[in-house]
C-alpha cells in the first residue's frame, strides 16, 4: 500500500494543482478557469465568434497583452484563452458558447461554428515556422477535438455532410463517401483560384470523406514535414470545404506566438508570409467568406510585423487605436482579487486533484495570504499560479498545513516573484540561443 503524500494527508489533494511552469501547451491537461478572465472572456467570444456571424463577414483580429515597460508582456493567459476556448467551441460546434452570449437556441443550432488554434514554434521538432506549417497544424487541432461523448469532430462533420447531401439528392446510400469527394471537388472547380488535388492531397480528401477517423489520423501522422510545410494551406482549404458541406457557418483560427515567427524570420520571409495571409487566407475562398484569423500580439511582435502588414494594406491591429476596438481584445490579467481567488479556488477543487473528502474553498491558503500573493504578482495569471505552486511545494517540504500570512511572509514573496521574473527572462534567453535550436 503506497504511503499517502503530504498533499493527501494535509490538504486532501492528489498533487499540486498549480502548474510549475504555467505556460500553455494544448496537449496538457490544464485546469481551465474561464471565469478568471472576467468580462473579457465574453468580449473575446463576442468579437471573434459572434460578431462575424452577425455581420456575415469574417474578420482579422488580435489578442494583446500590454505592460508598460515590458514589450513582451507575457503570462496574461492569451494562449490559454485562445486554445481552451477553441476546444470548447469544437465540442458542440459553438452551441454552448453562442447560448452563453445570449443567442437563441434556434440561431445557435442554425449557425454551427468551429475554431482552431496553432502556435508558431520554430524551435519544436519539425517546427512550425511558416503559414503552410501553421495551416496544417490548424487542421490537426480540429481533428483532435471531440464532443463530450468522445465522438471525434471529423465523424460528426461527416455525419452532417452526408445527411445534407442525401437531403439535397446529391448522394445515394452506400455511396456517401464518393458524394463528399465530388462535392468538395466541385466546390474548388467553382473557385477562381483552384487547387490541384492529387497524390497526398487526394488521399487526404478520401480519408476526410470516409467514416474511418482512425485511418484519417494515421494518415495525417505520416504526412512528412517537407510536404506539409509547402502544402499545409491546401489541407486547410480542403478541410474548410468539407466542413462547409456540414453547414459550418464560420471558422475562427487563433494564431499564437506570432513573435516566434517574427523573431526568427528575416524581413523578406515575414513579407512573404504576410502576403500569403492576405492573398490566400483573407481574400480567397473558401476562407474569404467564413474564416476569421485572430493573432496573438504584443508590442515587440507587432513592431516587427508592422511594415509588412501595412505594405499589404491589411487592417491595423494596434491595441491603442479606438477604431480597432471591434477587432482587438487587450487582456488585463487578474486585475481584481475576486478573479484571482476564483482561479485559485477552481484549481484547488478540480476533480483532477481534489480528493472526494476535500471541502470546497481555498484552504490551505487563507483569504489574506492569497490576496498578498495576488498583490505581488498582479496582473499576470502565470506568475500568480507559479508562486502558488512554489508555496505549496515549500509548505509540503516544511510540513506546514496552513499557508497563512505568517508562512507567506514578505521576504518569501519577494524572493518568489523575483524568481518568476528571472524564469521568464531565462526562458526568453533560451529561445534566443541558437545552440538550443
Amino acid at each position, binding site marked *: 500500500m503506497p504511503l499517502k503524500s503530504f498533499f493527501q494527508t494535509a490538504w486532501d489533494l492528489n498533487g499540486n494543482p498549480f502548474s510549475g511552469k504555467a505556460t500553455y501547451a494544448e496537449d496538457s491537461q490544464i485546469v481551465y478557469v474561464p471565469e478568471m478572465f472576467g468580462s473579457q472572456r465574453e468580449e473575446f467570444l463576442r468579437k471573434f465568434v459572434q460578431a462575424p456571424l452577425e455581420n456575415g463577414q469574417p474578420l482579422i483580429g488580435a489578442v494583446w497583452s500590454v505592460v508598460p515597460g515590458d514589450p513582451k508582456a507575457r503570462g496574461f493567459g492569451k494562449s490559454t484563452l485562445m486554445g481552451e476556448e477553441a476546444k470548447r467551441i469544437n465540442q458542440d*460546434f459553438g452551441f454552448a458558447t453562442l447560448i452563453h452570449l445570449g443567442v437563441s*437556441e*434556434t440561431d445557435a*443550432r442554425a449557425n*454551427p461554428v468551429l475554431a482552431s488554434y496553432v502556435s508558431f514554434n520554430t524551435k519544436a521538432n519539425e517546427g512550425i515556422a511558416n503559414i503552410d506549417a501553421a495551416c496544417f497544424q490548424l487542421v490537426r487541432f480540429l481533428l483532435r477535438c471531440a464532443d463530450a461523448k468522445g*465522438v471525434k469532430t471529423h*465523424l*460528426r*462533420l461527416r*455525419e*452532417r455532410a452526408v*445527411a*445534407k447531401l*442525401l*437531403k439535397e*439528392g446529391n448522394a445515394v446510400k452506400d455511396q456517401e463517401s464518393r458524394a463528399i469527394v465530388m462535392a468538395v471537388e466541385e466546390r474548388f472547380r467553382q473557385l477562381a483560384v483552384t487547387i490541384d488535388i492529387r497524390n497526398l492531397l487526394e488521399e487526404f480528401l478520401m480519408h476526410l470523406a470516409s467514416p474511418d477517423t482512425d485511418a484519417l489520423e494515421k494518415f495525417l501522422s505520416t504526412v512528412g514535414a517537407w510536404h506539409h510545410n509547402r502544402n499545409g494551406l491546401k489541407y486547410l482549404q480542403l478541410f474548410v470545404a468539407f466542413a462547409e458541406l*456540414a*453547414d459550418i457557418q464560420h471558422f475562427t483560427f487563433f494564431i499564437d506566438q506570432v513573435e516566434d515567427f517574427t523573431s526568427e524570420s528575416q524581413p523578406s520571409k515575414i513579407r512573404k508570409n504576410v502576403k500569403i495571409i492576405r492573398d490566400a487566407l483573407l481574400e480567397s475562398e473558401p476562407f474569404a467568406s467564413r474564416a476569421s484569423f485572430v493573432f496573438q500580439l504584443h508590442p515587440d511582435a507587432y513592431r516587427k510585423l508592422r511594415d509588412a502588414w501595412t505594405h499589404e494594406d491589411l487592417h491595423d491591429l494596434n491595441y491603442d487605436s479606438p477604431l480597432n476596438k471591434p477587432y482587438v481584445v487587450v487582456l488585463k490579467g487578474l486585475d481584481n482579487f475576486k478573479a484571482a481567488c476564483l482561479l485559485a479556488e477552481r484549481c484547488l477543487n478540480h476533480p483532477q486533484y481534489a480528493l472526494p473528502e476535500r471541502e470546497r474553498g481555498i484552504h490551505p491558503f487563507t483569504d489574506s495570504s492569497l490576496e498578498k500573493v495576488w498583490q505581488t504578482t498582479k496582473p499576470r495569471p502565470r506568475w500568480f499560479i507559479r508562486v502558488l505552486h512554489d508555496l505549496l511545494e515549500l509548505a509540503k517540504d516544511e510540513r506546514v498545513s496552513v499557508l497563512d500570512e505568517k508562512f507567506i511572509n514578505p521576504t518569501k514573496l519577494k524572493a518568489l516573484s523575483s524568481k518568476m521574473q528571472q524564469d521568464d527572462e531565462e526562458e526568453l534567453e533560451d529561445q534566443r540561443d541558437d545552440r538550443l535550436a
Partner: protein
Amino acid sequence: MQKESKDQKVTDSIPRVAVLQILQVLHHIADSGGKSTFEKVRLFLLQRSQRATPSSRFAMYTIARDVLIDLQKLQLVQTGILPRTQSQMESLAEAPCELTEAGHSLAEVYKERPGHAFDQLLVTWINNHPYFHAFIVRLHQQPLCVPDITSVKQLGSEVRSEENLNTLSHRIVDHCLKRLSNMPFPRTKEEPFTHAVGERVQELGRMTLSGLDAKKWVDTIQDKVVIPSLLTAEELPFTDAVTFQHVLKAAKDFFAASWTASHPELSLRVIFSTCDFQPPAIDSQASITEVIHHGKSFAAPLFVAALRSAYSRVAKPVGSYADAYAVRAIVCIDLQIQPRVFAACLGDLMSTDPTPELTIYTELPFDSPPPGEDYIEIDRNRIGLLKLASS
C-alpha cells in the same frame, strides 16, 4: 439446444438466416417450376448477397442449408439429403428440393403480396419453432430488458485483473441488477439470475478470462455470462447468446418486435413486441392464426399525445431541441411500434401545415444513430434533433 422445463425438454433450431432469404428461396424454387437443387439454391443466394463473398464453391452453403432445413421443417419444401459439411458438398450438391402444396401456396402469396407472406410465415414459425414461440409469449407479458455489458468501465477497469471469481460475479450481478431496478424486474428473477451468473463465471474460470484483450473480455462476459443468465432468469427455453440474437433478428424481420437502447431514463436495451396475435400470444397453449401489426393506422390516433409526452421528458428545457433518438425510443416502447412506423407517423405530421397547437422543427444529425439502430429518415431527411412548439 435443450433446456429442462417443468414437464419436458424443449428443443428447437433457429436458422442463422434472414427471414427474407427463406421467402426468396421459396419464390426462386417456385419460379423454377417448383423444383430445384441445393447447388442452384446456393448460387441463387450468392447472387442475391449484397456482401462481398469470396468466389468459392462453398460460399453461402451454410445459409442455403439452413434455409432448406427450415423450409423442410415447416413442410414447405421436401428435400433430399443436404450437405452438413464442406466435404459433403461435392457428393450432395445436386440434392433435390421440391415445393409442397403449402410451399406453392406461400410462394404465390409472396409474389402477389409480400407482406402477407411474411405474416403467414410468422404464424407458421410461431407454431413450429418453440423457442420463437416462447420468446414472443414472453414479450407479450412485458418488454424484455437486457443490461448489456459493452465496456469494462461499466464494471470498473480493475475488475479485469480480479483474481477472485466470486468478486467478479458479485460485481456483474450488482451492476446488472442496479440497471434492471429501473424496470419491473421481479425479485423472483433476481435469485436465478444471481445464481446463474455465479455458475457461469465459475464455468468460464480464471484461465479463460486471463489473457483476453479488453474487447474480447467484454464480449465473453456479455455472451457467456450476462445473456445466458438473463435468459435463465426469464425461464426461456434457450440460453445461448447466438440463438437469442437470431430469435431477436427474426422477430424484427417479421415486424413482431423491436429494440432500442436509447431510452433516456433506462440504461438498458429494451426489447418490446410490436404486434398482436389471434388468439392472444399470452395464451401459450393455443396455435396462433393471425397477426395484427401495430402499423400507421394503429399508431396515428395515439401518436401526437405520445410524441408530446416523450418530447417533454427528453427536452431540457422544454421548448429546446431534443435528441430525436431518445424521443423515438420512448414513443416506440410506449405505443409498441416499429421505428419505421414512428418515422411514417412523424412524416405525416410534418407534411401537414404547422398549426398553433403543434409545430415540429427538426435538425439534421451531427451524430450517427445509436449502435444497432437505424437513422430516423423521412423522405431523404435524416433527423437528429426534434423540437415541438405550441402556443
